[in-house]
């Protein structure tokens, strides 16, 4: 581990320099295993936040107070320490340019992590596929990668929309509610354009978003989902 970056009060990025690093695909995750001195093991999956093209592998971890793994990663781990990883893992929730678009990325909370890897990959390969990110988050302070996402929004091909579900700054003109069919109808590409959609977030968020998109006429076969649970700690 070479660096910790505090992204928000709850989310921290862990920058890793891996020996024999295997190139990952944007959207994949790794499993992290911790072993206590008495041999007790705990293992969790974390999405890779960096693009395959980035110099280091970055995981963004949400610290759960009662978690077995995340408090250690965020509070105890120090630069120079080593971690046991397995991966990269997964081949379903993955975006590569050959899969096409237009691309719709729908994130709930820390579900933005693998989608950020896709956005960085999109930029790294100079893709001209249009992308929209819809990111649902409690407040502006909870937006992970805020400066980077705002910077990406300046890219002609990338459109970033936030919905702040709990607290909005004064004069906020963006969305201010939980995701629903009307909001998705507003943001999503028309189904006739055959968009490719990735939805990542807590289980209930993913169900609502995916069902709403299908209800709007999107092809279920072009909607890929990944659910985070409280077991992500």
């Amino acid at each position, binding site marked *: 581990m070479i660096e910790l970056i505090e992204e928000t009060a709850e989310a921290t990025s862990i920058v890793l320099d891996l020996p024999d690093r295997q190139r990952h695909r944007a959207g994949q995750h790794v499993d992290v295993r911790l072993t206590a001195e008495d041999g007790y093991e705990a293992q969790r*999956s974390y999405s890779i936040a960096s693009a395959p093209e980035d110099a280091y592998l970055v995981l963004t971890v949400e610290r759960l107070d009662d978690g077995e793994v995340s408090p250690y990663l965020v509070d105890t781990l120090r630069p120079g320490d080593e971690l046991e990883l397995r991966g990269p893992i997964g081949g379903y*929730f993955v975006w590569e340019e050959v899969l096409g678009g237009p691309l719709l990325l729908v994130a709930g909370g820390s579900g933005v992590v693998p989608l950020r890897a896709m956005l960085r990959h999109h930029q790294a390969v100079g893709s001209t596929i249009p992308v929209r990110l819809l990111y649902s988050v409690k407040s502006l302070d909870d937006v992970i990668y805020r400066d980077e996402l705002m910077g990406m929004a300046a890219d002609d091909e990338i459109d970033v929309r936030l919905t702040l579900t709990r607290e909005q700054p004064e004069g906020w003109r963006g969305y201010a509610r939980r995701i629903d069919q009307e909001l998705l109808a507003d943001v999503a590409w028309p189904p006739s354009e055959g968009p490719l959609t990735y939805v990542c977030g807590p289980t209930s968020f993913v169900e609502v978003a995916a069902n709403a998109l299908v209800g709007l006429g999107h092809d279920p076969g072009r909607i890929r989902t990944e659910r985070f649970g409280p077991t992500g700690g």
Partner: protein
Amino acid sequence: MDALDGNAIAGVLFEVFGAEMTTSAAVCANCGARAPAAELAVYLRAPGTVARCRTCMSVLMVLVTIHERTCVDLRGLDTLEIPASRGPSGWG
């Protein structure tokens, strides 16, 4: 407990089958629904994991890992396609 999905067990499936399995089609023996393993409803409850069909909620796979040994029960599956091309897995 909210169900996760098959993405959450990609690592253990790789360990068991020696291949990336989340894009593999799983066919439910009960209702015949066919879906990528990534879309199964998964309940993680260490040391056991249960994967259910998202259409009829039948149990398709039960995986129990204790001391580096994983027991796999696939009774609820009609078929599971295992890719021929394999890659490296394992801890490091």
